[in-house]
């Protein structure tokens, strides 16, 4: 491949071949999109609209941050969409039907998500089911449980105005709290991914699971922890979406996992595992909402919005494949 190179040449090569390139590309794409829509649409460049884009990204962002962990290990989690709904129903039952304080409901939703994630992890690590199949099955289980628990009816939080006020209140710059919560979750996740043992093992599992196992790490246990982490963020997504609707709606959520996975992939998380970043994922999530909202505002018909968003996702995955191939 390369014979002799100067130090600056090899540094450039490593930059081009690193996954920082994908993140750089993703950020560049986001900036271009924002500039494009802002320039051609005076309505887009209003403060309220930028805030709307932030809010529209909150739920998908939470799910995408969570699924990044699992994808880095080389797995996938299709249950985060309906899992999110299941967790929102759990919260509804605790707060509205159980009459318990809001914070217990929040903990309950997060715990339900982590529990569901742990079950996914056990199916993958212990029963050796392929992640696609295991989480596909759990996707249906979660959906069914959400309907059973809620008796297929929405659970309204109207009697608990503190729920909406806490999450959708706008104490800072008119930006609802859900946005800050998503960013906060992102910062936390990024720290975990880059500075803790969980993060190191997440990458290790994705790069070379066998070598990790041989070096004495309890691969099964750590896999379960990773899936539980993804589930925890699905629980957070459930809280945020319930806040936006002031209710837990059991029929919502199917398909949300695809937007979350798309966000992670666009942001540089490789579906083959071993690579990814929270920053990239959040950028990917913003690209999706910016596209959707921008295209709506400039009046692109619904059908074309779908085509364009789909092409963006395909483009991102294609770039990922090119990049890995060029590294040999």
């Amino acid at each position, binding site marked *: 491949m390369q014979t002799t190179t100067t130090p600056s040449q090899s540094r450039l090569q490593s930059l081009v071949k690193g996954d920082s390139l994908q993140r750089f590309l993703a950020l560049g794409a986001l900036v271009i999109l924002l500039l494009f829509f802002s320039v051609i*649409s005076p*309505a*887009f460049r*209003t403060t*309220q*609209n930028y805030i*709307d884009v932030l*809010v*529209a990204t909150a*739920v998908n962002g939470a799910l995408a941050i969570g699924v990044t962990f699992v994808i880095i290990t080389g797995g996938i989690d299709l249950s985060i969409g309906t899992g999110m709904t299941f967790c929102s129903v759990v919260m509804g039952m605790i707060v509205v039907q159980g009459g318990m304080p809001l914070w217990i409901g929040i903990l309950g939703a997060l715990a339900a998500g982590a529990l569901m994630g742990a079950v996914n992890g056990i199916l993958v690590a212990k029963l*050796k*089911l*392929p992640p696609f*199949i295991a989480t*596909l*099955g759990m996707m*249906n289980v979660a*959906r*069914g449980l959400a*309907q059973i628990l809620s008796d*297929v*009816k*929405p659970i*309204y939080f*109207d009697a608990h105005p503190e729920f*909406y006020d806490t999450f*959708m209140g706008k104490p800072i710059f008119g930006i*609802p709290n859900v946005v800050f919560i998503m960013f906060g979750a992102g910062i936390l996740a990024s720290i975990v991914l880059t500075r803790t043992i969980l993060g190191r093992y997440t990458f290790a599992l994705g790069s070379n699971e066998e070598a990790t196992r041989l070096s004495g790490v309890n691969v099964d246990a750590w896999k379960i922890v990773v899936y539980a982490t993804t589930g925890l963020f699905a629980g957070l997504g459930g809280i945020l*979406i319930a806040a*936006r*609707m*002031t*209710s837990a*709606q*059991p*029929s*919502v959520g*199917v*398909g949300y996992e695809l937007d979350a996975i798309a966000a992670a992939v666009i942001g540089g998380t490789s579906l083959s595992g071993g690579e990814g970043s929270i920053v990239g994922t959040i950028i990917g999530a913003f690209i999706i*909402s910016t596209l*959707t*909202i921008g295209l*709506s*505002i*400039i*009046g692109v018909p*619904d059908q074309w919005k779908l085509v364009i968003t789909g092409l963006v996702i395909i483009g991102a995955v294609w770039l990922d494949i090119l990049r890995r191939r060029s590294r040999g």
Partner: protein
Amino acid sequence: MRSTRFYGRMAGSMALALVVGACSSSATAAPSSGAGAAPSAASGALPYIAIVSKGSQQQFWQAVQKGAADEATAKGATITFEGPASESEVDKQLTMLQTALDKHPAALCFAALDSKAATPYMQKAKDAGIPVIGFDSGVDSPIPVTTVATDNIAAAGTAADQMATAIGGSGEVAIVVHDQTSQTGITRRDGFVNEIKAKYPNIQVVDIQYGAGDPVKSADLAKAIMTAHPNLKGFFGANEGSIKGVLNALKETSKEGKIVAIGYDSGQQQIDAINAGVEYGAITQNPVGIGAKCVDAALTAIAGTAQPKNIDTGFFWYDKTNINDPKIQAVLYK
């Protein structure tokens, strides 16, 4: 290096996937009679009516199901009622339709998500001698014996008239619809738009967005509409999920009460919004009536008696002034 354990795992995975795939359609509800493959009512066995709906989880469809189930109990029939999780899942509905036909029901009640896609199945039903009753959106085909539905064009037209009154006869309005492939999506959108065009030249429908009935997606679309059209005076939400999205969007942008919101169907959130003055009013269909009349029409078809091609189940405009009328309360669902 492929071992038998590997193949065992593969087989186990595929078996699990098959089971999961088979179970992945939405819940079937009311018990079926367990009758054998023989079509129509044998003496002593209750006739079995298969109902394939556009949904089963949304409150509206549950009300339809209740009407159908109660009528079946009263008149002596057994039913199954199923529908996909969302109104964009055309393929899932077709699978349910095939399954229903395979059970050789005495009659089939059907509300198509996509009429054209359902055409071959209508032919199959006809060939098997199973009478088809359309309901709600019905199905755009000559095969159904009758269609039990709301006149959505007239209903959406009434919504347009009310919108005109509410905004003072002029201004910009927008519509959030659930989809553009089903009859209800098309007729409600067109009913509203055409009434505005015909009678209110000073009102413009500036935007129409499709949110699949998802309250969060519809909320984001409504906010985009408000951003693009800052002088917007009114929103029409063409089904419950859509108007929920509009209401959520108004709440998030603190525009409740500043933009007129008119909706469709009912549900707790809309009822509360109308009582609070945030929503101007809505069109309610008669979902329980649709379910009941569907079963009646099926039994009439099974008996071979003639019946009209269209059975109108009626609609009402309701708002703060009449929401507590017993007539209105009877058709609202929570």
